[in-house]
């Protein structure tokens, strides 16, 4: 349980962090909730860690132009307890409160989770359902990408070598929107066996699903069925259709598909009950 030796850098500016990252064989350290255990088990052995915790401007939540800008280093606890988010993007706050345990929520960050793209992480379901964007900084520039485009596959994102995810942008929810995140947790790790984020507004629904397959996804067919029929059960039943479901010692593919439909119905019903 001891990592290989590595260089540790704690840059004071984003430019410095980007320069360090360009050196190769370096990994960005955010909250370290996934990376550090992998290093301690020697599954990962980066030559250098670039710790973002002292880079200014990467934490906090600010409202700007109808959107909420959340710094990449904002912890799950800060998201969970943010009055602004609870009022204006409650799905994200609710999802953050379902992550891991208190210790993980005090250390883990939204940027770290998004960039890691763990197929059973909670955030991606919500980020898809609220149509979040991410900002990616590189030497001499920045780009903004829809989270749905950013998330490519299992542990695979659109982050280019040398890029750092600096923030997440979520729209302010309009009045009357209803949301819910429902998760069956794996009792050992706290990860989602299946997690479903639902967001309802004016009769249309967005459904983000995590844990079910290799990456989190929007359940487009289910959303369409709901828009056409307003039938929660029918829509929920469509969530796992055609999905190549994960299977492990905690849940078989069949069970995950079943639970995805059950939890989709629960999330939809809860979101509907909160919508007006």
């Amino acid at each position, binding site marked *: *349980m*001891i990592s*290989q*030796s590595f260089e540790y850098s704690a840059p004071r500016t984003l430019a410095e962090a980007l320069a360090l990252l360009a050196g190769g064989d370096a990994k960005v350290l955010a909250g370290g909730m996934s990376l550090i*255990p992998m290093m301690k*088990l*020697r599954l990962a052995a980066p030559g250098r860690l670039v710790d973002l915790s002292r880079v200014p401007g990467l934490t906090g939540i600010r409202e700007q132009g109808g959107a909420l800008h959340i710094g990449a280093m904002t912890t799950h606890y800060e998201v969970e307890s943010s009055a602004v988010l609870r009022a204006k993007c409650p799905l994200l706050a609710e999802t953050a409160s379902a992550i891991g*345990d208190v210790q993980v929520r005090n250390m883990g960050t939204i940027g770290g989770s998004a960039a890691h793209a763990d197929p059973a992480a909670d955030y991606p379901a919500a980020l898809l359902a609220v149509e979040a964007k991410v900002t990616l900084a590189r030497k001499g520039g920045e780009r903004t990408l829809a989270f749905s485009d950013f998330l490519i596959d299992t542990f695979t994102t659109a982050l280019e070598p040398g890029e750092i995810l600096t923030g997440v942008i979520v729209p302010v929810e309009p009045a009357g929107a209803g949301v819910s995140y429902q998760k*069956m947790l*794996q*009792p*050992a*790790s706290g990860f989602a066996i299946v997690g479903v984020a639902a967001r309802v507004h004016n009769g249309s629904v967005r459904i983000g699903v995590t844990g079910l397959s290799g990456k989190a996804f929007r359940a487009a067919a289910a959303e369409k069925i709901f828009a056409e029929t307003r039938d929660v059960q029918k829509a929920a039943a469509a969530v796992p259709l055609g999905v190549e479901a994960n299977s492990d*010692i*905690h*849940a*078989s593919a069949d*069970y995950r598909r*079943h*639970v995805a439909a*059950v939890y989709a119905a629960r999330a939809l019903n809860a979101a509907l009950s909160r919508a007006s």
Partner: protein
Amino acid sequence: MATTITKPDTLVGKRIKRKEDPRLITGTATYVDDIQMPGMHHACILRSPHAAARIRSINTHAAAGHPGVVAVFTGADVAGVGPVPCGASLPGLRVPHHSILAKDRVYFVGHPVAVVVARDRYIATDALDLIEVDYDVLPAVADPEKALAPGAPAVHPEWPDNIAFTYHQEGGEPDKAFAEAEVVVKQRITSQRLIPTAMETRGVVAEHRAGQLTIWSSTQIPHLMRTLVAMMLGVPENLLRVVTPEVGGGFGSKLNVYAEEALMGFVAMKIGKPVKWIESRRENYLCTIHGRGHVDYYEIAARKDGTVLGLKLKLIQDLGAYHQLLTPAIPTLSVLMMPGLYRFRNVSADIIGAFTNCVPTDAYRGAGRPEATHGVERMMDLLAVELKADPAEIRLKNFIGADEFPYATATGLSYDSGDYAKPLKKALDIVDYHHLRQEQARAKAAGRLMGVGLSTYGEICAFGPSPATPAGGWESATVKVEPTGKVTVMTGASPHGQGEETTFAQIAADELGVTMDDVTVIHGDTAVVQYGIGTFGSRGTAVGGPALYFAIQELKKKIVKFGAMLLDSDDVSFSGGLCVCNKSGKTVPLAAIAGASYRAMKLPAGEQPGMMATYFWEPPNFAFPFGAHIAVTEIDRDTGQVAIKRYVAVDDCGKIINPLLVDGQVHGGVVQGIGQALYEQAVYDDNGQLLTGELTDYAIPKASMVPWIESSHTETPSPVNPLGVKGVGEAGTIGCSPAVVNSVVDALSHLGVRHIDMPLTPERIWKLISAGGRA
């Protein structure tokens, strides 16, 4: 000298906070990993990634040459060290030679292959990666029933049937009982492999200085370990000191002598420097013993009126690749306790001990009794279902009567005392059983799945009479009154979290009339404490307590003699910390008596100076606690998730010394029982890879997953010892799993579900619900 005598309240029976807790919760306690020494080196162990393989060659050249590495040892280097001992003896037992480092073959994933010793732990870990082992991988078998099937890979080539032993025991006339039975119910019941998961992993520090070897180890049995490691290393036992600092939980997993304890002793002698090895969690999961691992085939015979007649058991024990200290003995405890609290006059049991390419199983909280209780309590419920009888009624009908003690069981035990209906009736009252069943009927009518599960357990503890244990079943205590009147107790029981520093102080303070603050309890250092056996099998208070009690009675005789001398009277009694002359009323306090005994200006006739007594107490019998647990559950019909709505535990552990500590033991025990019932399972794949190799995949219950535990008691004193105590360390675990499983099966029985094996994962239950009860 006359002072006002106020007899203090007795401390025994009071809820008193633990004396040991302030240092434990403020981080000032010393565990093995806290030990630092000048020149200390660090060891890391290379372990086999294969469950079965021949070792063609090991190349340690690069590791040995790595800067900072001082030594690398392999199996060839430790050929002179004796094997890891098995303390259990059974007729015909096959005992594989268990070398402390693999010689030419590995038998399970995690098998130690080489040890690297370096200046620090980082270097040692790096150097492990430089050792090259050429393995010829062989087929493995990880399931005990598969291991017994024809053609299975042989774990040990010399025993191709993988059978370590078979064992038969019967009492009464089981065949006749089954022939005459009106009802016979059969069921295959498993108790899955569990990983004990003590919060502190194991750790060893060893130092060889001036001819003396000292080993610090996180163990439950310092004295036995000293004897056995001295034999393994061939060092004189009186030049080996074992120190057990604070131990962060054992649950039986540290009731053992492990390869690493001898290995660190060997390394310290070789390098001439102190050496430390701290087990990682991954090593803890791979290499420290697991518990349970039963596949049981039960048959119960009864009359139509519910009277039980006989019980048969075929027990397949997954032993793993080797025998650790007590591995083969654990299932024999299941057989002893298979009749539970019931009047089974005819029983028959067959054990088959199967080798598998897995880490050995051994004692884990309850050790054999949770398996037995789970079996008989499931069978009583199955019988109740078969006869459409109430599970409470069928238990009450078959309990051994309160007037039948001591009760000779069909398995050869003598139950000491009991009133089995009492805790059950109390538990039924607490849950308001009648109304609860009505509520259940309403829930069912509304389509909800609600269950009520009973478990009435008995357990054997206070191990034990020496003839029934492998290495002595007595316990020792020394009590000293220091010249200033302070009291020092030394117990051989080596507690490791149970709280004997508090309960033994309560006993000593009451007996000697001093305050608890005046008493210090010392344990866990073979250079300080007289020989002792250790803490396991709920024996700390039940065997160590009486040893202390008798030591104090010896000492009191001496106190009275010195008191009589000082008071110049021949009619003196001792109470409340004072010797009193019954004629004059004059008194002399304990401190003055003790001071005089060391000063020794004058001695009572035939007395030695000093104020100290030691007692080695041999218990005449085991003690048999019992109780009733009730779990109320509700199942999520859509997902199969179990919610424990209510958990009631009524335990009878005899006389209670400290209710707070008893509640703590019950709570912890129940939580581990819930772990087995709902969450935990060590999963090996077909190739012997442990898939639940970390806490991310092995689910121990967290606080948020545990219900409120309503704990209460009945008190039926044991006649076995003068304190009337029985032991409670394992009761919660033993009583719990059948209550939870019976409750869940009860919730699903109208869907055709008869039985579910643990752990009751949501998926397992959902599949049963979906299949209409057919597994």
